[in-house]
């Protein structure tokens, strides 16, 4: 398993709430990657809403800076749905409104990775280094994995009924396909964006004390709906998940 994911799993504790888990993930990035600061930016409708979690110096200031100047690597990664890499910020001409303050804070290289689940976008994972230089292919792979985990954490999607303390593979940290199908259905039933549909699913699962997987199964089987009607009586867990 990837060093970063392994480190993250070592750092987290069962009592961590989603923000604490995101913080552990940022700490794992700083520990395993050649970067000094890692943060998770919340971005909605192309607007930067600051950092939700971070590790390393200046993280919050850099988040606030991108929010204030409405410019920078995080917004670009979000907008283009692709990772952004600037290995030598002081000598680049990108993001003029962001660059001068960031360089003054010691940023020499910055990398942003979009947090997305299908077409749903939630923000970015931002990495900053005080030494210039690109990330190696291995480091980029690690960062991509971290971004995947961050997307799931942001949505509380990792607790889909799995033994979350004992994952044996990265797959256990990401939701099953049926959860995405259910999010699509929920977005129609509630007439919301796909982003809000994930949040609605998570809220409903929590209120009904069922796992996200279970709720998704019932929704996809047309056994339960997110609109109107009394809450379903949840009996014994459904058997064959393959049906």
């Amino acid at each position, binding site marked *: *398993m*990837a060093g970063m994911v392994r480190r993250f799993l070592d750092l987290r504790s069962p009592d961590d709430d989603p923000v604490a888990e995101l913080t552990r993930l940022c700490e794992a990035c700083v520990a395993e990657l050649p970067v000094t600061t890692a943060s998770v930016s919340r971005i909605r409708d192309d607007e930067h809403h600051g950092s939700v979690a971070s590790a390393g110096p200046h993280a919050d200031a850099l988040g606030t800076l991108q929010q204030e100047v409405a410019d920078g690597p995080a917004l670009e990664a979000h907008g283009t749905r692709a*990772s952004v890499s600037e290995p030598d910020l002081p000598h680049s001409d990108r993001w003029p409104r962001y660059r001068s303050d960031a360089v003054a804070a010691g940023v020499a290289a910055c990398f942003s990775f979009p947090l*997305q*689940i*299908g*077409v*749903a976008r939630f923000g970015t994972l931002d990495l900053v280094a005080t030494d210039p230089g690109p990330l190696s*292919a291995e480091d*980029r*792979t*690690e960062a*991509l*994995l971290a971004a*995947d985990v961050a997307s799931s954490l942001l949505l509380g999607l990792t607790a889909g009924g799995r033994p979350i303390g004992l994952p*044996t*593979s*990265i*797959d*256990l940290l990401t939701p*099953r*396909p*049926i959860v*995405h*199908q*259910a*999010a*699509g*259905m*929920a*977005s*129609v*039933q509630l007439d919301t964006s*796909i982003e809000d549909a994930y949040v609605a699913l998570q809220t409903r699962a929590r209120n009904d004390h069922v796992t996200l997987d279970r709720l998704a199964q019932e929704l*996809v089987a*047309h056994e339960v709906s997110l609109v109107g009607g009394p809450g379903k009586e949840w009996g014994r867990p459904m058997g064959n*998940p*393959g049906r």
Partner: protein
Amino acid sequence: MADQSKITRTFVELADTLVEDYDLIEFTQLLAVRSVELLGIADAGVILSGGQGELQVLASSSELMRFMELIEVQVDDGPCYEAWRDGEVVSSPSLEDDRDRWPKFAPLAIDAGFGSAYGIPMRVRDQCIGALNLFAEGPHGLEQGDEDLARALAEIATIGILNARYARDKATLAEQLQTALNSRVTIEQAKGIVAAQADLEVADAFALLRQHARRNNRRLTDVAGEVIERRIRATELMGEGLDGAHP
């Protein structure tokens, strides 16, 4: 044995799909579907490694197959997992006889109605990027000639994926894989939307999406994206009817 002209057509089709900006999901999906047709087996699927030792299910000829493959990558047990790990063809002409060999995987596969299973490594020289998974209902699902064909299919697909990877500007297989998996998620979201809009089963929603993409010669991921943005609605897809369905 499959007939020669079909085999040739499949190889040409696979090569044609590997244009620039090809869709890894669609390519591996094509490999799975054609493997089922050419080899006369029940199901096929493809798992790939992202380069960090973790395996991902890329394509499956059915939802059941997808489930079986997810089991394999999660329990690290089964022919496909072994084929990838060892880089060798793994044959189980009788799953019933291999219950002890794969204690977690074999009982599930037998319960699902499979009698034999084969894992074909997707390997070129010393680089193994994943495996092609083949399942048949009865025992001895593959004859010797079929196994050679399966091996050739897996190899041509591997060469294609690796070449395309080098052609792309520094994009690692992990990055390609992530993009591919994200398109997979987009398709799942779109399936749910069509299913809810038209009150359909998810599998039927998928059939409509795929048919629309095929008829309009568009990428499935792009069609899925427009469904999610509500630029294509289920009624529009339904209006086209389903192939093979009576009017």
